[in-house]
Structure formats: C-alpha cells, structure tokens
C-alpha cells in the first residue's frame, strides 16, 4: 500500500537518490573551482607606514626565499605584486588591492602579529643579534600590520598567505642566524617531541563511527518513519478508517504492533535505500570513508549493534505513533513532528560529549545510553552489565510509548468530539494518580539538568536547589494543580507512640541492610573505589562547618524528600497497586533520583523501608524521623571513620534481625494508610472496560 503512494516514493526515496549525488557533485565542483581560482590569484598589496622601506625589504627577502625553494616544497605558491596607491584603504575597499602592509613601531611588549625584534641592524639585508646595552633605553620594536577585508574571499586568502610567507621568512632567517652563531642543529630538532597513538586503526575508526551511528539511525528513523507514522493514526482518524479498524476482531495491541512493524519496516527500508545510495557515492569517491572502518565493524559487532539499536528503532516508532495518536488531523501531527525530531536527536548526541562514560547516570537515559553503548562497543569495550541496563531501559521506554499508543487507541476523543473523560473532567486526586508518573519523570529530568549545571557549585547551594527548588516546589505545584488536601496527600497524621520506638530500632538495622544491598549490587556492577572516595569528598567537604553539614545532609532531605516521595508520590500510587508494589515503586523511584548507579541500591532499599513505614503507620512523620536519623548516622560514620561499610556478613545479618524486630513493632502498632486496599475494588472495574 505504501508503495502505491507516489508522493511518498518520490519525496522519501527517489528525490534523495537523485538530489544527493547532484549536491555532492555540485559542491565538489564549486569547491574545486574556487580553490583553483584562489590558487591562481595574483595578490596585490600596498605598503604604507613609517617603516614602509623595512616592509618592502622583508617582502623582497620573502620573494627571494620562495624563488629559491625547490619546486613542490611550497604548498601554496602564489604571486604577489606591490601596487602604488594614494589612498590604500579606499583601494582595498574597492577591491583594487587585496591587502595593505602597514609597517610601524609598537611599544615594547605589544608586538603585532608579525612583529619582530628591532635593532640598528634590522634595516640591513641580514638581521644580526646584538647585545643590548643595559644603560641605553630599549628601542621600540618594528611591527607589521596586514589589513584586509574579511568579507572578500580574495582579500582573506591573500592576507593569510602573506602572513604565512612572511612568518616563514622570519623563521628561516632566525634558524640561519642561530646555526651561524654555533647552534648545533635547527631549534625544532633540539629536545624534539612527537605524538604516538597506540590505538589500532579499527579503534580510531570505531570511535568516530560510534559517535554518529545512533544519531544517524534516529535521524533516519524519525524522518523515514514519520511518513507512515503520522498517517497511520492521525490520517486514519481523519479519513474515518480508524473507527472501522477498531470495530474489527483485532485487539488494540495487535493493531499497535502492526503499526509499529509497518513504521519500522518503512523507516529501515528508507534508511537502507539511503545507505545504499551513500555506498554508491563512496564507490564514486564522492564521499571519503576511513579505510579501517571494516576493522571496526566485524560481523559479531554488527550483530550486537543490531540488537542494541533495536529498542531505539522501536522507541522512535513509538514516539511517532504517540504524536500521530495525539493529533486530531494529519496536519496537526505534522506540527508535532519538528519539535519531536529535535528532541529525539538530543539524547543521540551523547557520544559527542567528551569524557561521558556509559557507567554513569546516562545509563538510564533512553537512547543516550544506547548511543554510548554503541560507541563503547565500537571501540572494543564490552561492559555487559551496563549494556544490558541500557538495552532494558530503552526497551522499557519503547514499551511505555506503546502503552501510551494503546491508551490513545482506547481514548474516546479518537472517535467523538468529547475532549475529556470523567477523570480529566473532574480533576483532583484521580487525575493526579493518573499523572503522577509524568510529574516525577519531569522532576527527574529537571534534577538531572540542574545537577549537571551545579556539579562544581557549593554543596549547600546544590542541596538547596535540589531539595527546595525541585522537590518542594514540585510538590507544591502538584498540591495546587490537583487541589489536593495537604493533610491527606502528605499523610500528616499522628502515629501511635510505640511507632517511634520501632523507628529508633529500625534506623541502625535499615542502614546496615542498605549497605548490604550496596555490597550485593557491587557483585554485579562493581564500583571503582576512586568513585566512592570522590563521592565522599564531594558530599563531606572539609570547608563546610560540621553543624551545617548535619543540617544540609540530614535535616533538609528528611523534610523535603519525604514530602515529595513518601508524601506525594506514595499518595499518587496508593490504591492503584498492592501495598508491597507501592513500597517497591516508591523505593525504586527514590533510588533513581539519586542519579548515581552506585547509590541506587542503598537509596532504593532505604526508600522501600521508608515507604513501608508510611504505609503501615499512615503517617509521614516516622519516615521523616527515620530518614533524618539514617542520614545523620551516615554523616557521623563518614566523619568519624566508623567502618559501617566493612562489616562481615554477621554484622549485616544482625542488622537485618534488628530491622525485622523494628518492623514487628511497627506492624503491631499499625494504623494503615487510608485507601491502602482500594486496588482490590478498582481491579474488577478496570476489567469491565471495553479497552484491552
């Protein structure tokens, strides 16, 4: 069906195939012509200024040097001639001359670009070095200014060539003088240094290809896939065929998967056509490629790259389908395309950032992580756990977009003019629960950007911006947007007195359990010791008073992080999932917000425990106290070198025992979070919908 769309074939396949060689040939031809014109250029210059004679002398020596050079050694031979002018600047502006050489004197220490040391013998044909008398005032050095017009190609070329030629003359004269005065060898041969690259040609080619491969794929996927993606939902909506399709026996999932496959097939088809096209240019030597490229991409590497790039293709297709599903018409879908195209390219340029490793927060940024993984694979570094994490993260993002498309296919706005469903119309808590993930995704992105900007800033500023600017303001925005009751949303209730005892027991046990979780994860993803040391130095800088450290690292997080995570996030998830799932989800999100892989396991573990205590007690206060004491313990242990991280297994088991005892106390004194079991009531209702 796609092949019957002549416009599609013409714009996406035929035109690029025809236009690209024309572009290459045209640009090559014009470049060569321009080069030839500039090569044959006879440079006209005027000389002026009080040191005009010295300039003429220098030019004459340069001419002689160039004439004496054997043929072929001068990379840019050219002719130059002096033109007599009464008004050199006007002549330059009118293009009668290309450069003005202005000879003058510059105060000491302010030599011009072509300046040279002055001396009484400087006017003679061969400059000599003379010892400077201590009593005599230092004579002003001569200088030469090359005045040109930056908006005229010929003027720019002449100026640069003259500058090069004059500097080469001065260099040659200096070397000759030094050799004459007894220097055993030319200065550049004395204590010479050289660069030695030990990377294989394949590795060099691999890193270059790795920087752009994902970017190219995303580029082709988005441009090629857009042609069918925008039509496949928005176009069908406009034609009315979507309604017909939705009344067939096919499930929504089957429809979405079929559309995904179509988009990926068409996009890859167009990509392959363009690659084949490119290979033709390579064959015609219109596009240069590194000879060692084949060494970088072995068949095994190629297969791995294909597997790695698969979720990127699925994600690009999913994003296009989302835009198409969101739009009411094909035209509206086209409006969405350009911003999406630009946003899609942003993560794909991650490999171009210098010094950014895959083993960092980028590992959980979809597309960027695969782009980094592709680069590392191409340079021969196979960090399997991180590659797996990158693949899973991007695949999860692709699945999430597919789920979003399924949601759009089930949305009634596809069929009716009604804009909203009941939840959107009424707003409040149900709408907040629907959108809580999107809010925290945005907060995470903001935190990532802010943290990267403030990486070198004072720790106190970083914490204030993150905790108050991101978490607290974000929480206030959520409360206000959905008109949530703060007492309900933040669980501001008084727990039973015995709960406090349970929390006091839980803190040491929880800390040890969190450290144990870190050690367990360290088996899978080992953390270099220098990373931990660097982190400790950053978090516990010596120049911040200890009391302030305690305030910023213990009090503020216990307050603001609890409001965001055990307050709003937990409130948004309660009733939608089983209590255990809620605790795990809150913990995982809490771990992800710490933006470092090695901190994920302990913070997620702590997050799960804090969510559990909030669910058991129906109050945020115990979690705040626990969080405060836990961070306090961590700061004190680091400050006073208490070896919590180096206990034996028995120590951690004892910690787990204390934690169990603490949870037993909390369980015995539980006052569960309101609406904790609402998921049981919502489950049958959900299955009664018409939507798959």
């Amino acid at each position, binding site marked *: *069906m796609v092949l*019957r*769309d002549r416009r599609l074939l013409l714009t996406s396949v035929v035109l690029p195939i025809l236009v690209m060689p024309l572009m290459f040939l045209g640009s090559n031809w014009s470049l060569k012509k321009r080069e030839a014109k500039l090569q044959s250029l006879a440079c006209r210059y005027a000389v002026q200024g009080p040191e005009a004679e010295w300039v003429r002398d220098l030019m004459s020596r340069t001419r002689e040097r160039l004439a004496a050079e054997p043929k072929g050694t001068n990379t840019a031979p050219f002719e130059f001639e002096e033109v007599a002018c009464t008004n050199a600047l006007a002549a330059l502006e009118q293009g009668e001359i290309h450069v003005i050489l202005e000879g003058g004197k510059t105060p000491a220490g302010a030599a011009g670009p072509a300046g040279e040391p002055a001396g009484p013998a400087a006017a003679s044909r061969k400059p000599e070095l003379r010892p400077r008398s201590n009593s005599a005032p230092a004579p002003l050095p001569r200088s030469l200014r090359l005045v040109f017009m930056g908006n005229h190609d010929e003027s720019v070329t002449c100026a640069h060539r003259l500058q090069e030629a004059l500097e080469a003359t001065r260099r040659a004269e200096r070397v000759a003088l030094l050799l004459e005065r007894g220097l055993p060898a030319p200065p550049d041969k004395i204590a010479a240094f050289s660069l030695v690259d030990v990377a294989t040609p394949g590795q060099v080619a691999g890193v270059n290809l790795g920087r752009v491969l994902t970017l190219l794929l995303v580029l082709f996927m988005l441009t090629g896939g857009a042609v069918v993606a925008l039509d496949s939902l928005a176009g069908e909506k406009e*034609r*009315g*065929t979507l*309604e*017909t*399709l*939705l*009344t*067939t*026996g*096919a*499930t929504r999932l089957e429809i979405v998967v079929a559309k995904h496959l179509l988009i990926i097939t068409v996009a890859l088809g167009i990509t392959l056509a363009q690659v084949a096209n490119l290979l033709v240019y390579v064959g015609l030597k219109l596009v240069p490629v590194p000879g060692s490229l084949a060494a970088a991409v072995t068949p095994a590497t190629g297969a791995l790259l294909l597997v790695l790039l698969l979720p990127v293709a699925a994600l690009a297709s999913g994003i296009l389908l989302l835009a198409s599903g969101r739009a009411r018409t094909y035209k509206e879908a086209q409006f969405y395309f350009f911003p999406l195209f630009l946003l899609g390219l942003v993560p794909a340029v991650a490999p171009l950032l210098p010094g950014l490793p895959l083993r960092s927060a980028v590992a959980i940024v979809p597309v960027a992580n695969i782009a980094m993984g592709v680069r590392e694979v191409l340079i021969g570094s196979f960090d399997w756990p991180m590659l797996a994490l990158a693949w899973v993260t991007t695949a999860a993002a692709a699945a999430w977009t597919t789920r979003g498309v399924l949601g759009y296919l*089930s949305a*009634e706005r596809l*069929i*009716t*003019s*009604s*804009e*909203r*469903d*009941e939840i*959107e*119309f*009424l707003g409040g808590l149900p709408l907040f629960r629907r959108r809580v993930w999107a809010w925290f995704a945005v907060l995470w992105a903001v935190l990532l950007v802010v943290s990267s900007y403030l990486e070198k800033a004072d720790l106190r500023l970083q914490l204030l911006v993150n905790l108050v600017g991101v978490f607290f303001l974000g929480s206030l925005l959520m409360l206000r947007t959905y008109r949530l009751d703060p007492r309900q949303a933040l669980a501001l209730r008084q727990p039973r007195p015995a709960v406090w005892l349970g929390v006091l027991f839980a803190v040491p046990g929880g800390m040890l359990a969190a450290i144990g979780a870190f050690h367990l994860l360290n088996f899978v993803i080992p953390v270099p010791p220098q990373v931990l040391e660097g982190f400790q130095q950053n978090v516990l800088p010596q120049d911040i008073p200890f009391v302030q450290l305690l305030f910023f690292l213990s009090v503020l997080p216990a307050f603001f992080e609890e409001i965001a995570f055990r307050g709003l996030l937990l409130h948004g998830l309660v009733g939608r999932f089983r209590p255990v799932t809620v605790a795990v989800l809150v913990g995982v999100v809490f771990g992800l917000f710490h933006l470092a892989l090695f901190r994920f396991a302990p913070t997620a573990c702590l997050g799960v425990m804090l969510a559990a205590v909030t669910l058991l007690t129906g109050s945020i206060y115990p979690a705040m106290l626990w969080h405060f004491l836990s961070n306090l313990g961590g700061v004190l242990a680091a400050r006073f070198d208490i070896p919590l991280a180096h206990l034996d297994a028995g120590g951690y088991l004892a910690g787990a025992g204390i934690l169990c005892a603490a949870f037993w106390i909390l369980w015995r004194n539980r006052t569960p979070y309101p609406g904790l079991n609402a998921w049981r009531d919502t489950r049958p209702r959900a*299955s*009664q*919908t*018409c*939507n*798959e």
Partner: protein
Amino acid sequence: MPSACSLIPPVNPTVIVRDLTKVFYDDSRGELRAVDGINFDCRPGEIFGLLGANGAGKTTTLRMLATILKPTAGRATVMGHDLATAPEAVRRSLGFSSATTALYPRLTARETLDFFARINGCPAERVSARVEELIDRFGIGAYADVRVDRLSQGMKQKVAIARTVAHDPPVLIFDEPTVGLDVLNALDMQKLIAAFRDEGKTILFSTHIMSEAQKLCDRIAIIHQGRIHACDTLASLRAATGLYYLEDIFVHYVEQSRSQAGESPASTSCA
C-alpha cells in the same frame, strides 16, 4: 389485543441492552448524558431501527455496541458476549458500517475485502472464496481491482457494505447507511439490508429518515435526548398514538418528552 412485539418468534435475543448509559465530559458542554439508561433486545431475522434526530444518541448507542465507546453504566451483550468482558468476541460477532464509507483509499476493492475478512478471523483457506463470493453478490466485479479512491460514492458504499459482512457476522450494525447517497443507490442499499434480514441476520439500523425506517424496520425505537420514548412495531405505534404517519408518531413522542422534561420520565423499555 396481543402486543405487536409478541408477533416476533420467541427466539433468543442476539443483542441485549440493559440500562446502557453514556456520559461525555468536556469543557464547553460540561457533563452530557448522550445515552441515558436505555433497554432493548434484538432477535435474529429482525431489523431494529433507532429513529432519532441528530444528536439523539443513536450513533453513541451503536458505537457502544461496537465496543469503540465504553459505557458509563449498564451492560449489553452481543451473541451472548458481554461488551465489557469479551470485546473481541463481540466485534467478531458483528459487522459495523459507519455513516461514512471509511475505506482505505489506496487499496482495491478486492484487497479491502481480503484484509477485513482476515482481520476479523476468517480462516485463511476460506478468504479467497469468500472474497469472490462477495464480489459476485454485490456486483462489484467490474471494479474489484480498481483503487477505492477512484470509485464513485455508490460504488464505495457497496464495497463498504461488502466489507462489513466480509466475515459473515450474525449481527450487522448500520449507522445511517444511506446518508449522502442518491435515490437509486439508497434503494439498492435498502434492498441489501432487507436481504440480510431475510438470511436471518440481526440488523441494528439508525436513521433520521422516516420513510426509510417505515419501510425497513420490523421494530422501531424512537430515541430522543438519549432516552427511548417508544419502541414497538409500526402497527403498534400507530395503534398507541392514533397517528398513521411515522413522522407524526415521532413528533408526538418528542413533544411528549419535552412536556415531561421537568418530570424526568423514565425511558421506555423495549426488552
């Protein structure tokens, strides 16, 4: 005098609708009850017509039965399959034809029939034979291999109807099928619908054209502002109102509903 409905053979209903309600929400209109607790049954070999003005709730009702809209309340079954719990089975049991022909412009008529037979679960080995059968039956052989976007409106309508029955479903839903057709094509369409009824299929049919309803429907439900105000055979409706023309009967019930608007009358059950 026995009820007109009792003249219909007492066979099991293929479509059962109970208290079906649909509420729309949007910023400009607020909360809108498009369908408000309607009840009716349809049986095999029957054309059941939903007669109402524009915006009465006909299309919304049919779309809920086709599972593309989710009921706000109430329940319905098609061939024993519940809308809520078995939407795919419901969709396989019915053919839905919307007010527009809604065909893929770059497919030929033959490809359209082939695609819809397959997607609705017609066994692969039977698809070709079924497509040929439909082409013969609907007389579209002359243009079976022409792209749909090059066909006239009448031809497209025939292809659309053939597509609706491609998988031979026992229940057919036609939402204003003669809208935009000239007299001759509209007559052809009515003949086709009557032929499907004669084959024993259940037909739900919505229209605002009185003559069409009068001519085709075995039973007529008069729907206004989301509620069914009368539901019976034409003879029974005439007897109940003392009016002969369906147009007058329709106006009678609409006026009656307007006069009772302040009293929130309950919907008439057509079960």
